[in-house]
């Protein structure tokens, strides 16, 4: 509370000055030389910005972009002075940052990606046999209601039919996520899970948070230490370490497939109720805003975003066209996948705090 009051006070005190500086910068003449734009981004976009073709496409438009990664929620704790933009993976932290740094609305949202669960063939097969998932090829749908029921009952893999065949399938059945206090995908997981657990209602107040708190706590506590970013979690999964079920962004899987990389017996499970990460640019300077708009509108950059697994806003066909050869893993259209609305950041923070506490 004191910290929030402090931030509010600081914003009030500095607001005038910051606004003046931003306004001043916005009036500066844009030169034709390459401008260096600095941003803090969610880790899942690191490879996009590091891609030489993206670097080239940006340079063609006069930009050199330098990025650093941070958990989306952790960005709030960073000093963003000297940066041109922040690029968290979801709207809620973006709104917080926009308020803190007085960024002008609307915020550019170049692309999005649904949360999915990756599993190896054996684990997916066991879920199917036990009515927790449906499979078609290397893609499938995870029944969130059934999964949450199993979590509530402390179901272990050993209790599931067919698990004995796989040595690594022991211990409590759970989806490994990132730390919801630091990283977006973990927080969105709670948003989707609480929505399902509360009968399709999005939490809007303390009473709603209260209702699902014991289950949310269970989902987080069983995991022990959590990865701070979805990139690390996915890396571990790919390298064969880590959990049987890991929550990642669809974009991470799609990007790997697009590179033609060997994914072994990976299966992509789309939760029947999931949350989208809306990759949202928070412009801190004029250059930051221009970059956000460029990412949204430039056809070459949109195409590159698809190659990195993202779905461009309003670009269903672009994504479908690019993933034709990979439909065994990916659902081109998200039919049958319900979008859980995400609570306000205040409610989500409260939910996270109770879940970790």
């Amino acid at each position, binding site marked *: 509370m004191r910290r929030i009051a402090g931030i509010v006070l600081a914003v009030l005190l500095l607001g005038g000055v910051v606004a003046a500086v931003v306004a001043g910068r916005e009036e500066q003449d844009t030169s034709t030389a390459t401008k260096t734009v*600095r941003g803090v981004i969610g*880790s899942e976009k690191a490879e996009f910005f*590091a891609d030489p073709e993206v670097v080239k496409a940006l340079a063609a438009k006069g930009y050199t972009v*330098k*990025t*650093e*990664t*941070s958990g989306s929620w*952790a960005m709030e*704790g*960073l000093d963003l002075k*000297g940066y041109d933009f922040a690029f968290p993976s979801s709207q809620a932290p973006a709104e917080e940052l926009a308020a803190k740094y007085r960024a002008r609305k609307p915020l550019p949202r170049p692309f999005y990606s649904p949360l999915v669960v990756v599993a*190896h063939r054996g684990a997916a097969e066991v879920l199917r046999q036990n009515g927790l998932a449906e499979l078609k090829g290397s893609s499938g749908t995870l029944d969130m209601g059934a999964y949450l029921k199993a979590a509530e009952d*402390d179901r*272990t893999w050993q209790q599931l039919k067919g698990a004995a065949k796989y*040595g*690594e*399938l*022991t*211990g*409590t059945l*759970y989806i490994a996520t990132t*730390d919801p206090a630091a990283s977006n995908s973990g927080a969105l997981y709670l948003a989707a899970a609480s929505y399902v657990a509360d009968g399709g209602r999005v939490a809007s107040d303390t009473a709603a948070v209260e209702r699902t708190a014991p289950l949310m706590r269970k989902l987080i*506590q*069983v*995991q*022990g*230490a*959590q990865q*701070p*970013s979805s*990139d*690390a979690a996915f*890396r*571990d999964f*790919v*390298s*064969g*370490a*880590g*959990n*049987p079920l890991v929550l990642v962004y669809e974009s991470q899987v799609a990007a*790997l497939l697009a590179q033609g*990389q*060997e*994914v*072994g017996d990976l299966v992509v499970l789309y939760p029947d109720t999931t949350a989208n990460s809306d990759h949202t640019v928070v412009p801190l300077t004029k250059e930051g805003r221009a970059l956000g708009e460029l990412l949204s509108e430039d056809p070459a950059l949109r195409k590159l975003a698809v190659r990195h697994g993202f779905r461009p806003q309003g670009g269903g066909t672009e994504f479908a066209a690019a993933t034709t050869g990979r439909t065994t893993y990916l659902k081109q259209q998200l039919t049958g996948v319900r979008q859980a609305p995400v609570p306000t950041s205040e409610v989500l923070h409260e939910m996270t705090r109770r879940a970790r506490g």
Partner: protein
Amino acid sequence: MRRTTSTGRRTTALVGALAAAAALLTACTPEERTPGESHEPVPGTLRVLASSELADMTPVWQRVEKDTGIRIRPTYMGTLDAVALLAGGRAKGRYDAVWLSSNDYLRLRPEAARQIVSETPVMSSPVAIGVKPDTVRKLGWKPEDVTWPDIHEAVADGRLTYGMTDPSRSNSGFSTLVSVASGLSGAQSALTDADVRKATPKLKEFFEGQQLTSGSSGWLAEAYDRRGDIDALLNYESVLQGRKDLTVIRPRDGVVTADYPLSSLASTSKEVRDDVRRFTDALRTPAVQRLITERTLRRPVVASVPPATGLDPGRRRELPFPGSRSVADGLLDAYDNELRRPSRTVYVLDTSGSMEGGRLDRLKTALTALTSDFRDREEVTLMPFGSDVKSVRTHVVRPGDPETGLDGIREDTRALSASGDTAIYTSLEKAYEHLGAAERDTFTSIVLMTDGENTEGASPEEFEDFHDGLTGAQRDVPVFPILFGDSDRAELEHIADLTGGRLFDARQGSLDGAFEEIRGYQ
């Protein structure tokens, strides 16, 4: 009641470790970094605070230096010490990046976690047990089917002994401890305090099989080779796979994996962080990932690069790492004070005339500081010497009442006074005699602190003859000499080699730091 006492002591020990880490920073030991180098920033050079075991990455770093033009200046330190340093805010301005075996423990300490940004895993290696093929045969094990309860059973039946590193000082030891505790508690999800309590009897039996402890993986391997009668080593797969004489088993019911994340420090400039990012990207290129897995036998984190030949591609469950500091520290505490064999140590302390003044004061300060680090059940003997052994005083840190023993040590330390010549070998012989036919149920060792050369009593040759005459467990008692003042490196190194100990240098660093570091070997 006793939980309160030991937790309180752990806090003090941590404070002690912090103080020691601070001392190491101001005056570093050679283990920490090569002398003559400073912590001053140099453009284009990254000052990396790295886990000790990453020393084997030198060829990889050289390759990446060539690829990127970025120079690396590593400072090696135990992972838990590095976390303490970060938590104390002491990395700021001294380092540009942090590269630990794992950030799991770091994340349990928010004040340390706040210091880093952009963590990127670079490679991975799970905890494993390397067992002599002959023992595997005798136990009738099929390596791919072995579980932690199987290992426990073999130990409890007296059919398996092993060595492992000290969990308080080495990340491999800590990860092993978490793996064993999870595996034996039957915990289905992240360990809780209740799981640890439930598993205590089994864990006690398990750790009765531990015949060797060490502050570093390197010395553990040396001691293992020297002893020859130990069946197995617990360590990271990469360390064990590097030896050709062990069957490497990743228990089927799960392991803890180190994923070596490279992280920037939050306090660094954007330019430095750009360099860290470029360096990280270079480490994750397929060519460098291949080099990593072939040279260090760790596993690549890029799907297109297969693990080096010999690394079993089969999957293992990842055991959840404790999610709270109280569980992690509680486990360390239980290990130190209840689960492991207690240590039994004779401190052979030079209090000859030349120690008069500053040196004696430093010895007293260092010993007094060390008392906060002694564990429950530990037996400590102080044996000050000059022309001969001056006194032999033994104290035991009793679990119900640790302060009495610790007060005794502090009191005897205060009473030390400098006089006489330097009878190193005669005093060592008396230390061995004091320990008698050392038993296998303690970690027994001798610490020798001297500031000069041998001038009195038995000669080096006589001591060698004496040592040759030792038998059984007594012969395995190592001497850890500390180089201090005007002592002779060659002489002390010879004692370490002869007895299977290790030399510690308090001339480059501090006496506190040397005593503290030896704790990992006791």
